[in-house]
Structure formats: structure tokens, C-alpha cells
């Protein structure tokens, strides 16, 4: 069991660990004596913490700077103790240690009482999802093992945890790490009033977190492998099942692309063949249809699929020296997906060092804890952390480093939520023909895609679209030019002239969807539907690549290709062909 020890600096974490190691006989023979002798020789008072100091830097600075791991055994089980630094400068190290722990021991100095990092660490443990916390009120020897003193601290800290909505600790224990009281043994002379278990007893009774087998299936796709060069033709969708279970033959869906198929086989190396697999396994599947999916999608059953959206309400902590600011793109990593993200709205920045107080800020600074809404550039599949931890938490990368991380507490609807829901219901219930998308791709030599020309009226979109269609067709592609005018003439015939733009876009998107389903490369041009509508169209074709081409001076909004009004046709055609290759539509690697 992995246990992390946290708490304010100098409250005695290292001493607790050192003492636990000594009292459970986990030290190499003679080590304790050697350290004691060394202390005598140098005239330093002996510290249990010295036992843990393996590194030069650390001994020089005299503080734990990084998480160190030590191993010990009780009569019941093996432990890995992660000693996390309490100094604020090293908060990111504390988080690294705590993020892989199953339980935490939080140490509070009886004499100093609850301090800034006692609170901050409590907050972080709760955010990291560590549900089993034991609080040790240490250095009880310095307050004469006074019961009242202990109870005051317990009351204050419990109050704090309640105020931030954290899980209440399993146990508060009055200890003295120096004298060994209530760590591995209880001395009735010292704390006769304490009837609870010792630290070791509590650790031994902490249940292992049950595997998340009974939750809905979630497997973020890590990669799609095909080792053709090595003579292996299997196309394997690999990933770790984070929750739930799945069997051969199960109908499954990938989000956010909404692709539906069934599991053909479960793959592995040097393992017995299996027909069923569950949470915890890093595995791989072949599918009954060779659908095109990519890393970052989440595999689930159709009935209990994850949320898909762009606006996430989150709780997070920021660790980088450079603040987290609005109006700039960062990289979001969630499950196995990664994509641009920015701050949509800062709800509040919480002063984690003070119980419950909030700060008025337009950015999130180093060591701040914040409640905010993030917006991803594209729809992403996720869960609320309460429903599934692995797909309900994320980190933010700034340049090359992880700068912050947090959990998803809610979802905020955006303008396209309805269209996305429409597409999901449609795709989950789609009645497929006998010819699969992969069959068509093999026949036509490419996947389907939408090349969408937008721009002001009269800039030559139609002419370019025709040229692209013709060039693709001549190159043997199944291409089709869709002029929006034709949709208006027929599909939209029943709409009034002043019909809502959103309905025009919806119908256009659904028509495109049908054509894409037929395996075509659709080259569209229309005055009715502009750049601003592109993401609405994309919401209706979540699994198809969209290449957005703006013709004219450029509106400043993002697109894949900006074409000048008088650019030679042949050049535009060549650029689009290159984009189709690059996106692996015409030049498919697997």
C-alpha cells in the first residue's frame, strides 16, 4: 500500500517516517547506530530524519526537497511510504508523491497548531482524490500530552476540512514521533486518555481501494497499433481500462467521434486468451470493423457513454511561476487526449492557506487553488470526477511543463450542445448497411472528408470548389461538390426566408453527414453558411475530418487554409491535396 506523509514543514513528517522504519525493524542492521554515532561525532543532535537523507543536496539544505520512497512491512502487509516535502517551494513534489498514494498521513505540530500548509495539503489531498486520510497531531510531548490541546486541534482541523467539502479523516491520533508514542505502540502512561488505534493499527485497517469494475466502462485510447513490418496484421486498439468491464461481442462506442462497433478479440502477449477484461488492465482489442479512431477517444458502452463538450467546470491548483491567464492557449491533457484550452471564466480563486477565503483575481497565480470554467478548442470526452476519476481529471501544460492540474466538477453548456446531442443520438442508433466505411475506404482509396469553402460572396469560392472537385475526381477520388444553393432549393424549401440560421446550418450539416457516410470527399461552397458556422457543422460530423478553406482577405478567425482572391487555381488545388494527405485522408498510414 502506498502511503504519503504530508504536512507543514518541520511538523515532523520525516521523524514519523524514520521512527516508523525503526520501530518496524525496517532499517538495515546497524544503520540507526551508525547515524547516531555520526551525530555524536559531529556534535549534531540525533534526528530520525537523517535516516532518510540519502542525497547530498538534501543534507546540505536540511529539508526534504523531493518525495522519497521507503519500504516497510507490518505484520499485515507491505508499505511504500512516500515522504513528501512540506515546504511551499516544493509543492509540486508533494503533489507528485501524493498523486500516486492510496492513503495519506497528515502531520500537525501540536505546539504550532494548524498552519498554512496543513490546510493547503488537506485541500490538495481532497482534490487528488485521496479518500483515506489519517491525521497525526505530533510532538504531543511538547504539550505534556494534554488531551484538551489535542481536541482543540482536532476540532479546528475537522472544521476546516468540512468547510472545503473534503472527506473527513479516518482517525485523529495524538503522537510523539520522537518518543514513539502511538506510532507502533501505545504507552498508557503518556496518553492514557487516548483509546483509539496507533498509526500502524490504522494503516493496517485501511481497505485497498476496490477496483472500479462496477462502474461504466471507460477506456481512453492510448494508441492504435499495427506492426505490419514485423509481419503482424492485427490492428489493435490499445489502452488501459480505467473503469468497468467489457466482453468480446460487446457493442461499444468511441467518444467524441461517436463511432460504434463491437469487440472482436482481446489481445495480449504471453497471457492466456480471454473473452472478458476489466478495470486495471492495460490491454488491446481488435474490432469487428476497422473503424478509424485516434488516440484520445474514450471507449465505452453505448448506454453509459461519457460526456462530450467544450466547457468544463473545474477545481484546480496552479504550480508554475508564470500565472495561468485568460486569452491564451494552453495544452490540456485529459485521459489520453491533448488539445488547446483556455480559461473561459474564473469563478473564484481560493486562498488555500486560509480557511475558505477567496481572492479577487483575473488570473491564477502560483500555488493558487481556483474554481473556473475551461474551454477546449474541440469537443472532448470526459466525466465528472465524482462519476469516474480517471476521465474526470486533467493537467494543463504550459510550454514544456505540467503547470497545473485539477478535477472536473461540472459541465457548462455551450451553443453547440444541442447539435452534439443530436449527432450522438443519431450515431448511436444508426442503422448500418452491409458495406462498412472501411470497405468504402479500401475501394475508393481514401476516407471521407469535408473540404469547406467559406468567404464573402463573389470571391470565387464556387469556381475553386469546382476545380478541386474535378482535380480530385480526375485523380481517381470519389469527390462531390455540394453547393449550398442546392440544399436551399430542395431540403430547405419549406423554410421561410427569415428562418433561423441555426436551422439552415443543421440541415446543411445533416446533408453533408449523409454524403460523408457514403464515403465521399465532399467539397462544399455556400454563401449561406460561413466561417462562424463551421464548428456547428463539425458538431454534426464529429468523426469526419473538416478542412476549412477561407477565400478572400481573411476574417482573422482560425481556418486550415487562407486563399487569396486571385490565387491560381492549380496552386489551391495542390495545397488542398497536400492537406488531404497530411490529415491521412488520401494517404492513409493504417
Amino acid at each position, binding site marked *: 500500500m502506498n502511503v504519503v506523509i504530508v504536512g507543514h514543514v518541520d511538523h515532523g513528517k520525516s521523524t514519523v517516517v524514520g521512527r516508523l522504519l525503526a520501530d518496524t525493524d525496517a532499517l*538495515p*542492521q*546497524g544503520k540507526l547506530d551508525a547515524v547516531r554515532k555520526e551525530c555524536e561525532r559531529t556534535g549534531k543532535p540525533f534526528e530520525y530524519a537523517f535516516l532518510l537523507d*540519502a*542525497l*547530498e*543536496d538534501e543534507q546540505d539544505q536540511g529539508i526534504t*526537497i*523531493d*518525495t*522519497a*520512497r*521507503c*519500504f516497510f512491512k507490518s505484520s499485515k502487509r507491505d508499505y*511504500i511510504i512516500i515522504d513528501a516535502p512540506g515546504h511551499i517551494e516544493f509543492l*509540486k*513534489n508533494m*503533489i*507528485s508523491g501524493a*498523486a*500516486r498514494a492510496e492513503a495519506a498521513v497528515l502531520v500537525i505540530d501540536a505546539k504550532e497548531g494548524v498552519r498554512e500548509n496543513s490546510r493547503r495539503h488537506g485541500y490538495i489531498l481532497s482534490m*487528488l482524490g485521496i479518500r483515506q486520510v489519517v491525521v497525526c497531531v505530533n510532538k504531543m510531548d511538547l504539550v505534556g500530552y494534554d488531551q484538551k490541546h489535542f481536541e482543540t486541534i482536532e476540532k479546528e482541523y475537522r472544521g476546516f476540512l468540512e468547510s472545503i467539502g473534503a472527506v473527513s479523516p479516518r482517525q485523529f491520533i495524538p503522537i510523539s514521533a520522537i518518543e514513539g508514542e502511538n506510532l507502533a505502540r501505545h504507552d498508557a502512561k503518556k496518553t492514557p486518555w487516548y483509546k483509539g488505534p496507533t498509526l500502524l493499527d490504522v494503516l493496517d485497517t485501511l481497505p485497498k481501494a476496490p*477496483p472500479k469494475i462496477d462502474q461504466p466502462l471507460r477506456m481512453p485510447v*492510448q*494508441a492504435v*497499433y499495427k*506492426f505490419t513490418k*514485423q509481419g*503482424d496484421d*492485427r490492428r*489493435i486498439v*490499445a489502452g*488501459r481500462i480505467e473503469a468497468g468491464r467489457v466482453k468480446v461481442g460487446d457493442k461499444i462506442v468511441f467518444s467524441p467521434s461517436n463511432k460504434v462497433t463491437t469487440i472482436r478479440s482481446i*489481445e*495480449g*502477449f*504471453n497471457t492466456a486468451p480471454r473473452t472478458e477484461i476489466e478495470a*486495471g*488492465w*492495460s490491454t*488491446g482489442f481488435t474490432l469487428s470493423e476497422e473503424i478509424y479512431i485516434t*488516440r484520445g477517444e474514450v471507449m465505452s458502452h453505448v448506454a453509459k457513454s461519457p460526456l462530450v463538450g467544450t466547457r468544463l467546470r473545474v477545481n484546480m491548483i496552479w*504550480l508554475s511561476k508564470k500565472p495561468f491567464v485568460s486569452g491564451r492557449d494552453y*495544452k490540456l*491533457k485529459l485521459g489520453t487526449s491533448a488539445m488547446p484550452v483556455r480559461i473561459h471564466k474564473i469563478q473564484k480563486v481560493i486562498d488555500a492557506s486560509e480557511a475558505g477565503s477567496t481572492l479577487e483575481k483575473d488570473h491564477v497565480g502560483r500555488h493558487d487553488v481556483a474554481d473556473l470554467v475551461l474551454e477546449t478548442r474541440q469537443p472532448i470526452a470526459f466525466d465528472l470526477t465524482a462519476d469516474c476519476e*480517471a476521465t474526470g*481529471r*486533467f*493537467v494543463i*501544460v504550459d*510550454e*514544456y*511543463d*505540467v503547470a497545473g*492540474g485539477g478535477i472536473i466538477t461540472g459541465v457548462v453548456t455551450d451553443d453547440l450542445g444541442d447539435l452534439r446531442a443530436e449527432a450522438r443520438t443519431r450515431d448511436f442508433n444508426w442503422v448500418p448497411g452491409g458495406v462498412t466505411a472501411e470497405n468504402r475506404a479500401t475501394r475508393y482509396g481514401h476516407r471521407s472528408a469535408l473540404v469547406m469553402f467559406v468567404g464573402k460572396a463573389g470571391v470565387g469560392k464556387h469556381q475553386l470548389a469546382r476545380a478541386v472537385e474535378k482535380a480530385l475526381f480526375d485523380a481517381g477520388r470519389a469527390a462531390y461538390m455540394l453547393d449550398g444553393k442546392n440544399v436551399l432549393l430542395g431540403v430547405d424549401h419549406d423554410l421561410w426566408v427569415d428562418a433561423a440560421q441555426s436551422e439552415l446550418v443543421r440541415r446543411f450539416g445533416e446533408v453533408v453527414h449523409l454524403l460523408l457516410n457514403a464515403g465521399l470527399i465532399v467539397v462544399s461552397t455556400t454563401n449561406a453558411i460561413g466561417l462562424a458556422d463551421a464548428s456547428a457543422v463539425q458538431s454534426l460530423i464529429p468523426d469526419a475530418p473538416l478542412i476549412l478553406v477561407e477565400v478572400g482577405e481573411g476574417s482573422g478567425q482560425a481556418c486550415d487554409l487562407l486563399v487569396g482572391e486571385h490565387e491560381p487555381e492549380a496552386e489551391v488545388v495542390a495545397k488542398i491535396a497536400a492537406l488531404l494527405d497530411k490529415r491521412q485522408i488520401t494517404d492513409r498510414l493504417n
Partner: protein
Amino acid sequence: MDHLDQLEQQSVYIFREAFRHFERLCMLWSIGKDSTVMLWLARKAFFGHVPFPLVHVDTSYKLPEMIAYRDKLAFEYKLQMVVGQNKQALDEGDTFPIKLSKNPGMSKEEQAINRTKCCGRLKADALGATLHGTGVRMRMNLVTGKYEIDPDKEPYTGVIVGARADEEGSRSKERYFSPRDKHDNWDVGDQPPEFWNQFKTDFAPGTHVRIHPLLDWTELNIWEYIKRESIPTVSLYYDQGEGTRYRSLGCGPCQAPIKSTSKNVDDIIAELKSGALRNVAERSGRLQDGKHGLEELRRKGYM
């Protein structure tokens, strides 16, 4: 799912993340038990394949059995086997064994210093040069089984290493994904945070990342896994009837066997469980480690 399964599954996850994020990925293979378990885990992760090169630094002082075992496995598993060596140091005779033979009266302290220096040149320097592509890389031709000069001189940006946290102090501070700067230095005091399973996979040009799939494994876990999976290992780990065996493999002149009569994997597991080796550091037979020797070598990039 038992504990070994959990360790295995996490390692597999790490391998796949590494393969995804580092186009220039390689794995160090020291032929020892840990990196051989890693090799096995790589095959687990990639369904029987090892889709990146394995790098071995040959000091020329390895026991012949290790080299034979390396080449046999590489050929059998069709591995992309790359070998590096500090030819210059060997040609100049700048190694501990040669210096000792020239000066047999060398004091213990001097010996220790020269051992560390030798490691620095034959291992750390050679490894650096091989990883950066500045030194000659030899690659096994999988048809003939012979080594040829590797035309590939591109530096590796992701390096998979078999460090375990329980080995000795400094390793307990490692992350799964641990950045090294332009000079291969490890800044122990300022490492990026590692939230859950979100690793450091973005890196500045010129820097690289060390990846540690075995971080959470203990020596006992390694042996239990070797047994469970029937992974082939070098015979040097087992007592051949003389009452000694190697616990950790290095170079011939700088390693001493331990007293042990373990003749096979089961014996070793029983020996480790009995606690008989508890008070002997795993690398105690590795004579170059010294007080801060290993820590220093690590900073310089050795493992």
C-alpha cells in the same frame, strides 16, 4: 489482480506513453535482470514486438556470458540492437583494470577513485556519446547476426531506463518521466510535477527525458515476475556449486559475487523472502558505488 499484475500493467502503460510521445525512443539494456524484465514488459506492451532500439554500452569488461546472452536474445526476438563503446578510452588504456595492472600497489582510496573514473569514461561518457549519436553506434544485422556501423546518428530524445526506487537512496527520488537538460544533468531539486498518470512528455530541443517503467518494482518483484513469466536470465545470477553468485551484474573487475547457494529462481525468491540479504545492499558487490559515487554518476547521465 495481484500486486505483480498491478506493477506490470502500470509499466505497460508507461511504455505505451513513451512510445507515443518520443519519436526518437530507445531502451537501455544492461543484460541484467531488471532491464531484461523491461524487455519482456515492452513485448507485453506492444503485443510481442519491441518497436524501438535497445542500447547496450559495452565496456569490454563485461563477462563473456553476458554478451553471448545479449546477442542470442537480440537475434531470437529480432531486436533493433545498438551497441556503443568508448573506443578512445580503451585504446588509450585509460581504464581501471589497466591502471591497476600498471600500478599493483594502488591504495584502496586510489582504487576507489579510479573505479569511479573508469565508470565515468567507459559507461557514462560512452552512453552519452551513443545516445547523442556523437559516438559510433554498432547495430546488429538481423540476417547475419553480425554488428555493423549504424548509419543512424540522430540523438535519442526518450530513453527508457530500468531504475527501481528501492535500489538505493537517490533512485527513490525519480519520477516515471524525468527530464535531463542539455548536459544530461538531472536537477533533482527542481523536477516537474507528476499528476496521476500525466507524465512529462513535452521537452525543449536539446534536452531529453528518461523514462522509468520499473520505478515501483522491488528486487523481489523482479524475481517473482521472472518466475511467473519464465523469462530467460544469465546464469551468473545462480550459484554454480561454489557457494557464490552475482546479485547485480556489472563489469568483471569491479564486481564481487555474494555468498549464496541459490541455484535457481525459486531459491533466490526464497532467499530474498527469508531476509537473509536484508542487511546487504543490492549493489554491494558493485565496487564503484562508494559513498556518493552512484549519485554522481547518475547526475552525469549514467543510468
